[in-house]
């Protein structure tokens, strides 16, 4: 069961604050739209836009600080103007650019 909504991202109408959008883990001006199932730019708009809701018990991706955060932190960060998302988008072939680190 979904947790209680404790905060909402400002309704800018742009992808970067939409609940369906996950920014690229490295270059956060592009990202994946779960609604359209395609990559869009952070300032694109569409009729399905819905601002992100921060819910109790969930984890979020902060693209401002490039870190996964808890719902409490996410709510705090929203107040500071950081950009929060339900997750980050990692492209499938990113491994080609990563060294083998063990």
């Amino acid at each position: 069961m979904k947790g209680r909504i404790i905060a909402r991202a400002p309704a800018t109408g742009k992808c970067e604050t939409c609940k369906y959008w996950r920014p690229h883990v490295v270059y956060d001006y592009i990202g994946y739209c779960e609604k359209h199932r395609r990559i869009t730019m952070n300032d694109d708009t569409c009729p399905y836009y819905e601002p992100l809701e921060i819910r109790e018990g969930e984890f979020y991706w902060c693209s401002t600080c490039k870190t996964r955060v808890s719902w409490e932190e996410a709510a705090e960060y929203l107040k500071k103007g950081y950009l929060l998302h339900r997750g980050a988008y990692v492209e499938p072939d990113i491994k080609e650019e990563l060294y083998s680190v063990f």
Partner: protein
Amino acid sequence: MTENVDLKLLIGGPQGGGIESAGQIVLKSLVLKGYQVIGTREYQSNIIGAHSYFTIRARAERPGAIHFPVDAATLLDAESIFTHFQDVKPGGFIIYDKSAVNTKLRLIAPMPKPLKQRLEEFFKSRGLEPVAGSALKVAEENGVKLIGLPMKDLVRSVAKEAGAPLSRAGKTVNTMGLTAMLYFSGVEPSWIEKAINVHFAAKKKVADMNVLASKLAVEYIDDTYGGPCCFLPEGPNLGKEVMLVTGNEIVAIGKAVGGLTMQTYYPITPASDEALFLEGHRNLDLAPWAEEALHLKRIGSVVLQTEDELSAIIAALGAAAAGARVATSTSGPGFALMNEAISLAIMAELPVVITVWMRGGPSTGLPTREGQQDLLHAMFSGHGDNPKIVLASGDHVEAYYDAAKALNWAEKYQTPVIHLLDKYLASTVTNIHREEIDPLKITIERGKLVENPGPDYKRYQITEDGISPRAPMGKTTMVITGLEHTEDGMPTEDPVVREQMMAKRRRKFETIAKEIPASEKVVLHGDPDAKVTIVSWGSTKPIILEALKLLEADGVKANFLQIRLFQPFPVKEVLDYLTRAETVIDVEQNDLLQAAFLIRGYTGFEIKHFVKKLTGRALWDKEVAWAVKRILEKGDREVVVSGGA
């Protein structure tokens, strides 16, 4: 004209953001344009997002070292701007993403806190807001030209012009950044396009997209900054066929050409890429000239990834017992796990090459950074009296021949050969000409291998040189054991046999010391009559050779004693060279000064001056020269250098 070219470039960005490809494309562009290159990568161990960078140097003569400040830098994100804004020399330029300028320092999560604190203090002391734009402003005040690229808009343009989704266009940010840097430095777009096509040869669509991105970056530079700042003439090696290889790759190639039939490994940085390269080329068809040279239709080996490092070496020893020509590859922590089996290999007289790619220790330490801290570990690995061979390679070409030679020595002397290399060599790319890695110079020696052992065959037959005939397991009945044994391998605790076997293994070690030529034990580079001798080992070789030139330009005549073989230790040769010099300076990348410790132990020669680097970053030619001069001028006992981000 080209003799004056000495181009130093840097590309920094988030790990996973195409920094590796960008570095490779820059290297390829400059090689195609006729220059010799070196490129080395620094990366974090956190996989994605944190700062990584590639430093490149190009000139007519092959560069042996990199150093800061660079002539130009492409800094693809805010963390790169904060990390490198002081690493570009006055008169140079920085390419940056315009959208990064307002990024606050405190919001850069992957940046190490101590660096963040140092930078915060820096900006505070200058009354500047700690944002990326302030860092750029400082660079500009230092005489660095700033070239901002609107990456987001350019990505949109690439997608639009190519009719491609943003997911593909978004991956061309690195190409636009490197193109801007090369083009502004005077490299014509045609060379960059060629390099892109070579780099993405197997991916036509990706190549086309990147060529388009490169063109858009050139157009932007032309429209906004009026074209390139300089002209880079064609280099003297234009049209020459070269290979661009990392240290990992050249060792793999050396092993393949040297007749390796099996490699085992467990993944570990910075060793894995060597085994992965062998795996990727395990069945390699040869070019006609290579086929003729090697008398082989194809080369290849079995590559086995085991569940841990102890399994890796034990599997290798099993294969060696069966007659395979084997190696295993690892780094410090993995090598620690192999220790027990090193003693087994010595007692059972099994040939194995252990390629040790050193990194910053102890423990997990700095897994992706440079270190020369495993020399003593290699020397004293294993338990019991355990003579073995320990050699260290200084550069790519040496590493190629050493990889093959190590296989020969292992089989000839039926003993483990520990081949010491390090992270700097592993991840440094350079151009190699075919004649430098001539397969005809490599002969495969397998020692006293007996294909058809008779009924009286004794695996551990006592011989004058300490080396017994070796038959592969399965050819005859034999016992191979880690217990002390008789000539036919049967375990025994008989005191007389024990002494005989100890003496046999000692004689083998003496044979090794006698048979390995002096030229493969130590090399004296430079003027033998110089009053200053720098002594070092491993990947510091090309860096010190560059430093010698810088010292000579400053009127200091020095030579360089490179120790190649550490076990058996070349006592006479080392002592001969060191006693000739008035001042001896030891250069190492470890805190204990491990080579100096061994020199003192084996020869009694006490080195009194030391240069060391402990940061895990590449040693620079400039800092070696600076430290040597400081020692000569002020008589310092120890100088610690620490350049690099």
